[in-house]
């Protein structure tokens, strides 16, 4: 089959690789009909997440048709079913899965030993997301093996288009969980750093969950425009406006009730000097992640408010405003999305027309064009917000 493989930092290529096969009783093999490029794929692309190896198949947002099933798959999954696959691989049996914390499944990372050395304890395995998180072949391919298929998939009826349900695999639940972690109450103002797909869905979800006002912060006018037009959010372009001042002004000095960091490790800053400082530290490995958005989120949040960290971080950050965080009684919540927990309720919301996730798609192309898709997505060319690949 053909698959999009990581070759070296900033180099991906579509290659012929062997077809996946059933390795375990609870596996399924899925023929992929739609797959997407995620913002976190860019962290992998640029080599900011360690433990990538030449030839690794990328991709963790995919859906398709079940073509092969292991003998141990329960819950009535059958050959021919149309399914969306959750990006965290989760067994459904460990204590974490039983509590609905699927992205910290205790069993799905065979390389947990390496992850423990870096992170203390290991999170779940993730498709196409480095050897630290399992070394699973990803879904930017014609086929993929899905372990614990009875837990990691949701069946989709035929009347919904791929474009409407594909993002149940990652970015929709991820944005939704970011908003849910804010514990939104009536009248709340939520500020969101990053108007990428996750930030867009976080904005839409915050309003769905009862926020009064949502403010999205980015530097690309087209992304801010999409947020205004599709989610009902207000926007701040941080290259034109000082974010802390603007947020203080918009909330009459209180600060937003909750702040969502939907940027993560590769943040930018309007001040060239500050950006250069973190860029240099990252280049010399003095820190792995550039936490511009997180610092601003902490400083601007109201006293006693919540910081919801959904943007991906890989390792260590520097100059975290701990004094502000501690003295002002802030809370922080975080995690890779526990996708399996949100797929069914969010599918219901899509079906009822409460949200149509397809608004983020700006480009659709064949699998063979994946390297081009990575390029325009990374460089924000051609107003790119989300690339869907059709294998």
């Amino acid at each position, binding site marked *: 089959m053909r698959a999009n*493989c990581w070759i070296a930092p900033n180099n991906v290529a579509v290659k012929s690789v062997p077809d996946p096969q059933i390795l375990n009783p609870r596996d399924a093999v899925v023929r992929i009909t739609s797959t997407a490029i995620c913002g976190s794929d860019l962290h992998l692309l640029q080599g900011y997440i360690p433990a990538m*190896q*030449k030839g690794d*198949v990328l991709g963790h947002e995919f859906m398709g048709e079940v073509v092969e099933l292991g003998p141990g798959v329960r819950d009535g999954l059958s050959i021919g079913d149309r399914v969306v696959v959750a990006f965290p691989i989760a067994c459904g049996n460990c204590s974490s899965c039983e509590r609905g914390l699927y992205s910290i499944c205790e*069993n*799905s990372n*065979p390389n947990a*030993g390496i992850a423990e050395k870096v992170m203390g304890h290991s999170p779940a395995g993730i498709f196409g997301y480095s050897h630290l998180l399992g070394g699973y072949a990803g879904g930017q391919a014609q086929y993929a093996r899905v372990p*614990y298929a009875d837990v990691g998939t949701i069946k989709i009826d035929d009347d919904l288009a791929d474009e409407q349900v594909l993002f149940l695999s990652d970015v929709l639940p991820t944005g939704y969980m970011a908003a849910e972690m804010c514990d939104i109450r009536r009248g709340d103002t939520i500020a969101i750093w990053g108007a990428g797909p996750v930030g867009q869905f976080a904005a839409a979800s915050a309003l769905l969950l009862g926020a009064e006002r949502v403010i999205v912060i980015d530097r690309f006018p087209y992304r801010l425009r999409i947020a205004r037009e599709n989610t009902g959010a207000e926007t701040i372009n941080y290259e034109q406006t000082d974010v802390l001042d603007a947020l203080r002004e918009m909330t009459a000095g209180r600060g937003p009730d909750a702040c969502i960091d939907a940027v993560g490790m590769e943040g930018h800053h309007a001040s060239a000097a500050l950006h250069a400082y973190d860029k240099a530290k990252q280049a010399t490995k003095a820190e792995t992640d550039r936490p511009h958005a997180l610092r601003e989120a902490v400083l601007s949040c109201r006293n006693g408010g919540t910081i919801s960290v959904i943007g991906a971080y890989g390792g260590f950050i520097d100059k975290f405003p701990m004094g502000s965080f501690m003295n002002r009684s802030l809370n922080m919540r975080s995690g890779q999305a526990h996708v399996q927990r949100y797929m069914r309720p969010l599918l219901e919301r899509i079906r009822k027309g409460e949200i149509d996730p397809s608004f983020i798609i700006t480009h659709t192309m064949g699998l063979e064009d994946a390297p081009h898709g990575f390029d325009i997505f990374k460089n924000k060319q051609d107003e790119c917000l989300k690339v869907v690949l059709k294998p």
Partner: protein
Amino acid sequence: MGRTTAGMRSVTDSLGIERAGEDRGSEGLARFLGWVSLGLGVTALARREQVSRLSGVDDSPTARRVLAAAGVREFGHAAALLIPRRAGWGAWTRVAGDMLDLAAAGQAMKGRHGERRRRVTYTTWALAGITAVDVYTAVRATRGRRGRDANRVYGSVTVNRSTTEAYRFWHDFENLPRFMSHLQSVQTTGDRRSRWTAKAPAGRKVTWDAEIVDDRPGELITWRSIDGAQVPNSGSVRFVPATGGRGTEVRVELGFRAPGGIFGARVAKLFGEDPQQQVCDDLRRFKQVIETGEVTRSDASPDGSTVQQQMKQRPAQPLATHGSGR
């Protein structure tokens, strides 16, 4: 104290589990010698004149230089004995230093007479005494270390199953090869007896018979190889309910006499056969099997969690074995 399993010193704890005896005495002695070294180093450098007079070598500038060098060296011994978490090998650096000092004293004896010769003689006797203490400490410390590290390994894991389920699964020894990667098979041969076959390095196989020594349902199983095994070994597994319904804490201890002794164990470690890491990986797979029914496999680690897999990863792309081209 003093019961021996597979030739190891051991103590029995309150739960009836044999543990390798820790030799705390030698640790304390080694630390003490570290402080002595520090004191000697400071004295030799700060009171150079007095020390050289006392040891009877105040007549030669060379001897005084040797003395100063020995003082500096003492700081090295102090560091080796005081900084590491376990003093084990540090005492040997003192033994090596003693040899140098004795050689220097022997040299100083030549050509000295009267009072000075008498002082050098006293110094030599004092050095010999210190050497004896150092050798004793070093031998005891390294012996204690070997007993602990090379021959006995521990591991623990929490599983989301009741103590009874975990006990039952483990008690059927034929299940063990499903998660212990070095075991090929275990066959029950009698009421408390079983025959174990393990993979050994270089594609060889080792077979032995084992018997259950203690068996408390839902609580504990201990077993040991019966006489004549090539690799005498013993093991115990304890099942303790985790607090607040968090499943079962499974704690394993394995003891064995490594083939080829300490040397063999070290060579094996070089090839990634680290018994401590192996028991951790085995427990990780035990958790996977008892909770999910299968060993977790990815494209990069198709054999599941093993040290070797983690060191030598395949790329994360499908395996090419049956190659049924679609």
